[in-house]
């Protein structure tokens, strides 16, 4: 079925997200997700039946329920039967799957969505269950602890210090003051050490939220969007799973993904980085060779809103929306998953010259 041209053009044509909040306990997952699905469809005029492929990202461990993603499908309207897939991962990886599906010519349009409700459980404990079950998970090191080890490694290497980390956090949340969806906006106290060397201000808010994007190919994208955000390249890579095998001050997987996505061919003007911890932005800026002239996280990034499983997709959506609005011509979007930036995805998005 791969009759499509090898260089099929694929674009993000629409993006929507919830207002991210500490808790959405009054809503089930599908109730939280549905307005976002409707918004992203309405903005293109597409109906569910017009979508060739649907792909979602979420994690059962957040809700504590098996196959929770099948319930969320109720919000899509799966009749007549649809072509559908799911990744137990951030929605950015669902977008990657949808992109390959369109690339093969099997689909011209795709709906990608992701959601996460951290409020029912303790997300720090939940995330320990994705760690090596033999050597690491029995010790219950939580996500903040692992990020703090990485932060200390950066400080020891002279790559940052606590005031520089505080500046990263405050710059992101200042940027978020113009983002109506963000959970933490404007000045936020840097606070006490949550896990030294990280202070509460260096850590992301815990919250619930959802996001959705629509992808379309070629002229279909031009019909659906005045200025499509063309995906010029996208790639994802993973580090060795042993934390003690890695150099935590660097992210070779991000660099390689960026290289394969074509990020270094020409400068980008915008970068949406999925760095839930301030220290991780330091690692990513270095790996991606981002200069001071690049607008990093104009949305406020994951330090302003970090709905687990959706925050990476939101980086792609925010970068694309900036191109839609004419605020960016070439943007980089990054998503991560796993402890200490274990897995990394990089997409390069461009708008047509104006």
């Amino acid at each position: 079925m791969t009759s499509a041209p090898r260089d099929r053009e694929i674009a993000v044509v629409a993006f929507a997200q919830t207002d991210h909040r500490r808790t959405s306990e009054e809503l089930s997952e599908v109730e939280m997700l549905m307005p976002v699905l409707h918004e992203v469809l309405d903005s293109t005029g597409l109906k569910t039946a017009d979508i060739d492929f649907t792909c979602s990202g979420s994690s059962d461990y957040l809700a504590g329920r098996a196959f929770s993603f099948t319930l969320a499908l109720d919000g899509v309207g799966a009749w007549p039967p649809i072509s559908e897939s799911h990744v137990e991962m951030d929605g950015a990886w669902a977008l990657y799957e949808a992109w390959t599906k369109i690339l093969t010519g099997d689909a011209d349009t795709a709906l990608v969505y992701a959601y996460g409700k951290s409020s029912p459980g303790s997300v720090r404990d939940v995330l320990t269950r994705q760690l090596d079950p033999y050597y690491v998970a029995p010790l219950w090191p939580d996500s903040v602890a692992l990020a703090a080890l990485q932060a200390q490694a950066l400080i020891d290497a002279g790559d940052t210090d606590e005031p520089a980390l505080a500046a990263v956090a405050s710059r992101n949340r200042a940027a978020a003051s113009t983002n109506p969806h963000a959970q933490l906006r404007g000045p936020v106290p840097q606070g006490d050490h949550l896990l030294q060397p990280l202070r509460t201000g260096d850590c992301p808010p815990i919250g619930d939220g959802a996001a959705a994007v629509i992808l379309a190919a070629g002229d279909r994208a031009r019909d659906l969007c005045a200025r499509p955000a063309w995906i010029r390249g996208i790639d994802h890579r993973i580090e060795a799973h042993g934390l003690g095998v890695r150099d935590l001050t660097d992210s070779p997987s991000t660099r390689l993904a960026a290289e394969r996505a074509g990020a270094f061919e020409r400068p980008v003007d915008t970068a949406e980085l999925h760095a839930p911890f301030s220290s991780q932005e330091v690692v990513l800026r270095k790996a991606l060779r981002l200069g001071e002239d690049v607008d990093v996280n104009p949305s406020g990034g994951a330090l302003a809103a970090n709905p687990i499983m959706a925050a990476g997709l939101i980086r792609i959506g925010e970068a694309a929306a900036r191109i839609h609005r004419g605020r960016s011509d070439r943007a980089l979007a990054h998503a991560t998953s796993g402890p200490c930036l274990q897995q990394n995805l990089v997409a390069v998005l461009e708008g047509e010259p104006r």
Partner: protein
Amino acid sequence: MPEVLKAPLVVEFPFTRSLGPVQSAFLTGLRERVVLGVRTGDGRVLVPPVEYDPVTAEEIGDLVHVGLTGTVTTWAWNHEPRRGQPLDTPFAWVLVQLDGADTALLHALDAPGPDAVHTGMRVRVRWAGERTGAITDIACFEPYDGEASTVTVHAGEFEDPVTGIVAAARLDYTYSPGRAQTAYIDALSGRRTVGERCPSCRKVYVPPRGACPTCGVATSEQVEVGPRGTVTTFCIVNIKAKNLDIEVPYVYAHIALDGAGLALHGRIGGIPYDEVRMGLRVEPVWTEGARYPDHYRPTGEPDADYDTYRELL
């Protein structure tokens, strides 16, 4: 709108995992107070050991006996230990490169405070009193300023090797079913069954989940259905479930409550199991204090005509 329901939910699994030869040797070694690493093709020693080289993906298995002393490569001070963590007093998370190893092991360091910890500090293993062949056989590390321990080759052979671990996992949640299911459960407490009608296809969903899965739109119009209904299909259960106080065989059925757009599940009682049939008219039977019908029993009405429920099969 009534307040959304909430209840504690505990998800607990004892995951049973088998070990390959390298992990088995490493964890058995811990039980015997020995730390083993594995040597890669280019001569690096990985601790904890893995079966495949993380760089080349080559299979590896040459075991090496490394020291019980080592050096902290990075650390983080944890002033509020959480459930399941190695120490219940404030401690440092550390990556420790044991003497003779080229990679670092994650564990806890028992130290009086963050001022007593630094990258590069020397530490040694503190063994757990009772050891079973698990990473927790290392109770933690402790500061140490003595001599480095010796490093030798080790065959990795033990009597009675550990071949598997049971990894207990427990997560605590506060479950909330959301708006639509809260309304459904609230109505049940008054022994009423409430569904929601789809504004688009007009189908009535019971139990409602807040969305029409066919149309993908929100449902909100509440509709009381039942209490009577029709058996649309059924099966006969012949195996007694653990902890279930119901005599077998019994009948489990799909029941379309009057006014509902789809059938829900329920047990049929009050009739011999081999007399249950499609079209049988039934009604719920409640027991004292129950939150949902215990079972459904025949109403005595004539059977429903097939055409009245064929769309609900």
